[in-house]
């Protein structure tokens, strides 16, 4: 089985350049943010607000405010550069119900198989960026006492 990894400069993964204050944390179009635990949500999360990310222009310190919690981040050099691989979504295919028996078997035969019978080509990945730094929020979130209008949607949950 072969999975191509393409090194191309024409990436279609992002919607353009990031705000300039973020550029030092990764590449022009993409940054990596590392945090302890995971962001957990109950409901559908697409488009939901997570928090507010701020970068102090002078100290280059970053903070992330999620609900009542404040995270302090720093810039960390990666021990080894990371290539960020991106795989575009699977193109919409005809669902099985729409196909009758005949069509389906034709499609089965169309799949190129290699010597051992495995599917020959898999969907490939594109190298969209090389990142040498990451933004790390390594500490536990600090509760915020002051009552600031809270953005809904997310909360940090410890593992």
């Amino acid at each position, binding site marked *: *089985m072969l999975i191509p990894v393409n090194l191309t400069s024409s990436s279609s993964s*992002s919607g353009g350049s990031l705000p300039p204050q973020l550029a030092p944390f990764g590449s022009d179009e993409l940054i990596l943010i590392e945090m302890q635990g995971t962001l957990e949500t109950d409901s559908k999360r697409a488009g939901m607000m997570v928090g507010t990310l701020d970068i102090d222009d002078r100290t280059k310190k970053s903070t992330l405010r999620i609900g009542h919690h404040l995270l302090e981040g720093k810039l960390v050099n990666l021990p080894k550069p990371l290539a960020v691989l991106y795989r575009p979504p699977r193109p919409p295919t005809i669902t099985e119900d729409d196909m009758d028996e005949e069509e389906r078997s034709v499609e089965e035969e169309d799949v190129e198989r290699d010597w051992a019978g495995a599917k020959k080509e898999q969907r490939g990945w594109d*190298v969209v960026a090389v990142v040498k730094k990451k933004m790390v929020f390594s500490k536990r979130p600090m509760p915020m006492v002051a009552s600031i209008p809270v953005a809904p949607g997310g909360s940090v949950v410890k593992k």
Partner: protein
Amino acid sequence: MNLKFGNDSADTGSFKLLELPPDLCKLVEQSLESNTTATWTIKGQTNDDAVLCTTNKTYAIRSIVLSNSVLVVTRPDDASTVGSGWEQEDVVIRDTLHEVLELVPSVPRLQVLNGLLRGREYDEGHEDEDMEDSQEGDAEEGRPTKRRKFTYDDARASLQASEMELDRGLRERRVLVLDGELRPIAPTHLTTVLELLLNYLVSLSLPHSAAPVTDLTLALEDDHEIKPKVTTQVMAWFGQVDDGLWSLNVNAVVKEIGLGILRAYKWWQDDPIPESVFVSKWKTAVGDTFEESVSLDLLLGNYLSQPSIDAFASSEPTLAYFPSSTLPTEPVARFADLFLTRTRWKADDIAPFLSEICVDNKERDKLLLKHARAITDAEGVWYTARMK
């Protein structure tokens, strides 16, 4: 600026992180900058450990699981900004990752090739195969179908090696690519082709540093029915083909022909050949022009030389075929094999059989120190097996 969740990764594509060794990082950056497209390939069968192949190297892929999460953050893609309430500064989380892929340089995994190619030798008399194949279909319907051909493309798709490493591996194993199919050439047939090539070089009085390829292939085809595609591949193994001219690697050819003769006198069949007989046979086979290149040194690691024990016969040593390539690669097993073959070895005699498994003389001496015992007598230093 606001950090938001992007659309579900099933709709917008997913991400992976791949740790880059310095040389690969340079490659990626160059290709991203210079706008050229290159492709690496992840290879493996479902039960293999995956490897990543560049054009000339192979890397094993290991997954490192992270306890932290890594968020991939970009600008929102167009589809998600269509909704309301998006600001200029907003960035989105495209994917949450818990794994980094690490690359470790690895040797090409070509050992399986030996098994895959077993029984597919190309030998004399296989020239007419194409015709047999085409008749087979209509004439003998009931015959069990022939084994599926194993092609170069199959090898490229299923073997975990980069293209350059695969090509080198095929060359070293003397595998012909005939109409895409891989066929290791039978050693005897290879010797025949090489001997013919040398003969024609002389009889057509062609210079061996720049012999026209077509002259030779035509001669071999007309007089001996050896296909040009076989001849040209053999020529490429034993020299350089440039601009239709073949520059022959004399030592490589002479060595292969010597091996071809020696192969008939296998050590394990207890049928050695006197050294002088062998050398004169060898010289005849390579012809006058290349006679002076004949030297037993070319065959080091492929033969055992036995001093004559019979006091009445000529005191000449005898030779027998004993290729180091058939010995185990693991040091302990190799030493065990060597000491089963002979109970004691002179340092110079054992050295050629160790060169494959150590990078330099220093490492060889270390191996000898570890796995053998040195005894000095009037004749010099002998190595014997260590007592268990």
